[in-house]
């Protein structure tokens, strides 16, 4: 009987596993986490749509999720892959800018 081969995998529960995590991985991860959190925040928003904190979280998460999705879409449509880090930064920057603009200039 031969022993099962020992195969190392990145240990996500250790600091070493996260060391050197590249931008594309962060982009993917943030978008997925935002998607899951959106489900929770949308539910909270339905319960009480007037809570400021929930409104802010909903806006921030929707912007993050959508703009990182646009980034992925642009790359899928053929934008040069060497731009992927710049697109990641642009998506985060745009999300922050829109959030601040909308939250500062609330019309209701």
């Amino acid at each position, binding site marked *: 009987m031969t*022993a099962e*081969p*020992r*195969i*190392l*995998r*990145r240990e996500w529960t250790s600091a*070493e*596993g*996260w*060391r*050197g*995590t*590249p*931008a*594309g*991985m962060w*982009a*993917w991860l943030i978008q997925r986490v935002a998607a899951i959190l959106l489900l929770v925040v949308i539910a909270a928003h339905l319960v009480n749509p007037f809570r400021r904190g929930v409104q802010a979280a909903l806006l921030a998460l929707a912007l993050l999720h959508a703009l990182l999705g646009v980034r*992925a879409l642009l*790359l*899928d449509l*053929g934008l040069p*892959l060497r731009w*992927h880090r710049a697109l990641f930064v642009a998506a985060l920057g745009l999300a922050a800018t829109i959030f601040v603009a909308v939250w500062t200039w609330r019309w209701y």
Partner: protein
Amino acid sequence: MVRLNVFRWAPGEAERIRAYEVEAVADTTVLDALVAVQREQDPTLALRYACRVGMCGSCAMVVNGRERWACRTRLASLGPGPVSVRPLYHFPLLRDLVVDMTPFVERHAAVGAALAPAAQAEPYVVIPSASAERAEIDDAIECIGCGMCLSACTMVAHDRRFPGPAALNRAFTLQRDRRDAAHGARWAMLLGDDALPRCHGQGNCTDVCPMGLSPTRSIIRLRQMAVRRMVGLAAPQAGRGQ
């Protein structure tokens, strides 16, 4: 002096991290340091290398959390603090920093990575180097088989049937090769549940490729080709089995 924290393991033994101190100058590479350890401190340390000049990819390993070739990674470029050295992920360990590359070959075989020449295809150099057809795959044909992309890919960790970046990159070059007769069979595999749909476009493979290849781009191009093929817009090619 630079401290190296090196992963050690051998069959039947518990894995451990062993620390070594080595003298380093400005141009000392990780490989130089590991060879110095092996020669002067611990002859039992196992590592693989061949050309020492960044051509063969044999010395691929995970240094400070990123896949790199040890012979082209200067210790000085890694910043202060101890340097962590581990074997490639997702490959069976043989000993210490040496892994079994068999899965790399098996994944290539799974995508039909050998040219299947069409019956009437000219045997040699029928695609001019200056042609658009060649330019399309120019970035993808320089793979040296180091395995770093497979180690960096998170989907490889979660789906044993996923061919991984290198094999899909190879498949792309063949799907663009009009001399190849296996396009149809390869599409059937590529469009299955465990191939193209599995890539999440994280780009980890592209980030670590020492040759500057972009398997992510190859996968995106394959997806674009697949969509064009599905809607009947595939460019006519002389290859068989479209």
